[in-house]
């Protein structure tokens, strides 16, 4: 018998398999491992951001600033590497620290001033996006050899398939996050916080530290996603990753994480990101459909999943009564 808490994740995985199968039947050339790997290549940054977002949502919060932090990261990286001539070995650690610090600051404000995460991270979103334009209002193209080699290097797999370095980074992040979520105190405290903050406090758990760390982690993930995004786009621009926070939230929810917090799996988010990728791929194979169909399908899926979660929790209530 399948444990009830795994139902959403299984549904997500089954949906992914179904969509991939449907695509394979309909379009020649769709059914190939490389198409699947391309999903990862094209969505590595989304995956990294969504992992950080999963922690935030599991803790009962939300982080709207992630897309803007990505843009700011690309902007700072491009400006320092291209215009100031700093070495990437300095720039990349620096932007990661800046992203984490940005998240830490938002977390601290959320906790100590008891302000809704929605508002604080909304402010963070505007702030980070605005700061991009302080650096430049134009695209800064990067032609530094390190960045171009990161963008172009293909890691060969047996059978002629390949992935990019970004995919490796994203998969390492996913694996590390699974460990973090299930085998460390920080991870378990995050779940406890999302289950009931007042209980967590009365159980003597470090609520303040956990909450702030969750946003710090999300900030770090955003900055890392920003670095990966820089590899992908080879430029810094203030309009990069507009609305990406919503894609990340959608991926997390489609992956079975409850928006009310306390319940969710990193693996679910992984499938959630891939589902978004499959939809995009199907639409590009179709050729004539507008890319906005991606949004329509994701919108419908979100609705479907939220209703599914509602039904599952309602059934749980019924069974207990």
């Amino acid at each position, binding site marked *: 018998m399948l444990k009830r*808490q795994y139902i959403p994740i299984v549904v997500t995985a089954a949906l992914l398999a179904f969509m991939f199968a449907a695509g394979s039947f309909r379009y020649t050339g769709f059914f190939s491992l490389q198409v699947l790997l391309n999903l990862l290549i094209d969505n590595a940054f989304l995956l990294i951001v969504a992992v950080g977002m999963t922690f935030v949502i599991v803790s009962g919060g939300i982080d709207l600033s992630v897309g803007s932090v990505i843009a700011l990261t690309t902007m700072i990286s491009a400006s320092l590497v291209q215009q100031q001539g700093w070495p990437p070995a300095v720039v990349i650690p620096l932007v990661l620290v800046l992203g984490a610090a940005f998240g830490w600051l938002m977390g601290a404000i959320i906790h100590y001033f008891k302000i809704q995460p929605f508002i604080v991270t909304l402010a963070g979103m505007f702030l980070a996006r605005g700061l991009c334009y302080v650096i430049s209002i134009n695209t800064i193209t990067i032609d530094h050899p390190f960045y171009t080699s990161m963008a172009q290097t293909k890691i060969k797999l047996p059978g002629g398939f390949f992935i990019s370095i970004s995919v490796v980074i994203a998969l390492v992040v996913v694996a590390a996050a699974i460990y973090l979520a*299930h*085998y*460390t*105190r920080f991870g*378990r*405290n995050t*779940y*406890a916080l*999302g*289950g*009931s903050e*007042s*209980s*967590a*406090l*009365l*159980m*003597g*758990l470090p609520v303040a530290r956990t909450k702030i760390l969750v946003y710090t982690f999300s900030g770090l993930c955003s900055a890392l996603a920003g670095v990966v995004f820089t590899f992908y786009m080879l430029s810094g621009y203030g309009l990069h990753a507009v609305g990406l926070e919503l894609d990340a939230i959608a991926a997390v929810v489609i992956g079975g994480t409850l928006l009310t917090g*306390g*319940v969710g799996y990193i693996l679910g988010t992984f499938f959630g990101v891939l589902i978004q990728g499959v939809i995009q791929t199907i639409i590009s194979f179709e050729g004539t459909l507008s890319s906005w169909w991606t949004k329509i399908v994701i919108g419908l899926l979100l609705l479907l999943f939220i209703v599914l979660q509602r039904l599952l929790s309602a059934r*749980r209530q019924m069974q*207990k009564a």
Partner: protein
Amino acid sequence: MEREREPILQMSNIHKGFPGVKALSGVSFRLFPGEIHALMGENGAGKSTLIKVLTGVYSIDQGTVELARQRMAIDSPQAAQMAGISTVYQEVNLCPNLTVAENIFIGREPRRFGRILWKEMNAAAEKLLLTRLQIRMDVKLPLSAYSVAIQQLVAIARALNISAKVLILDEPTSSLDRNEVKQLFEVMNKLKAEGLAILFVTHFLDQVYEVSDRITILRGGEFVGEYLAKELPRIELVSKMIGKELQQLDALPREKEAASAAESAKALVIEAKALGRKGAIEPFDLTIRKGEVVGLAGLLGSGRTELARLFFGADRPDQGALRVNGVKDGITSPREAIDQGIAFCPENRKTEGIIDELTVRENMILALQATRGWFRAIPRKRQDELADEYIKALNINPPNPEQLIKNLSGGNQQKVILGRWLLTQPKLLILDEPTRGIDVGAKAEIQKLVLKLSGEGMSVLFVSSELEEVLRVSDRIAVLRDHVVVKEIAEDEMSQQQLMQAMAGE
């Protein structure tokens, strides 16, 4: 004394104030190892404040807390837990989304190099539950898969794992059924035998006498006394909680005139037969006739409000029948109750009654508007007339219908709410603690108003914890104890002594 042992916990001369209120003044409390000690008191006695002091939620203004003869400063919930004081609350303070084992161990999970060892944790949880509490359960399921009673036992297991010396059980039995209570008591007795000191807070008198060795009574933030349970008769316990000595209890002048002989011939307005709701109130019979005032007496938590809520359709009964105006099962929601001519003034004026940001007039017309439906607005002119009429009739001060209600005193706010329901011209008016927290003058006015309304043919269900008040206005009194209607006292046998004996169960 039966024992001359050292108390494990000694609180002396504790003072704690909040802006405008003195919650505790000079309270002492001690707890011995291997005893179950009940902390008793009515609303506002300071029980919850004392417990919050002990659990580190509040800091004290003055006084000392000693644990095993060591003076302690308990300044956070963590500090209390570290010191060995653990609390299990009525609403279980655990995380429903985590597994049972995690709920017991979180914060102290067995780890190696920072990695949580799930297998060891699950095994330890199973062993702890089995050996200390004698329950066998799947500790890998989320806590939410289990009933509240089991969740409480898990909370106790967590407390034991922190190596608690003092276990505080804050109203643990409120949402348990009889078997579950029995199971909890078995666990409590076992832990007591192992030498744990247990502080037990409850509103159920029967339960106090069933498990407690000692009782401490608080009243109005002050220490009344500490007694051995077997040496303190129930009636004395109640009189000490309420603050009335038995000798004082002679008949009060009644304002209500003797009921007419034709009373019983009057039409029934509401009739409950074996009506009950699990966890709220045991099945009871109660009738209210036209123009009759029925008082509901009982200690806090005895089920008064729960009963009133059934009559108003705010809660659904799960057994028995309720006839309103001769129609069976006529009420399934407050809307239907209003349509049937029932009005309900809730106990918590602040949260369930007034709407802060609206004016007196707007607050008053709410219920009447609701009965008409929101698309048939009451003409403004009519609203003004009604507001003026009831402001005058209820003597609301200041007599300005456009004043925001939050600027009125408690008594006047209460009158506005009364006015709100009187506007609907109800057949049955349910008043839940209508005079709590308002001054003496306003109290007397509200009591007079109740008598006047009943004289005009309105039926009233009057809920109050003040004995005098219930006696003064009621034609008949139903007494509740531990969620059971234990007695109905007719007009001719009413006295405070009668009432108190019924409340205490002697």
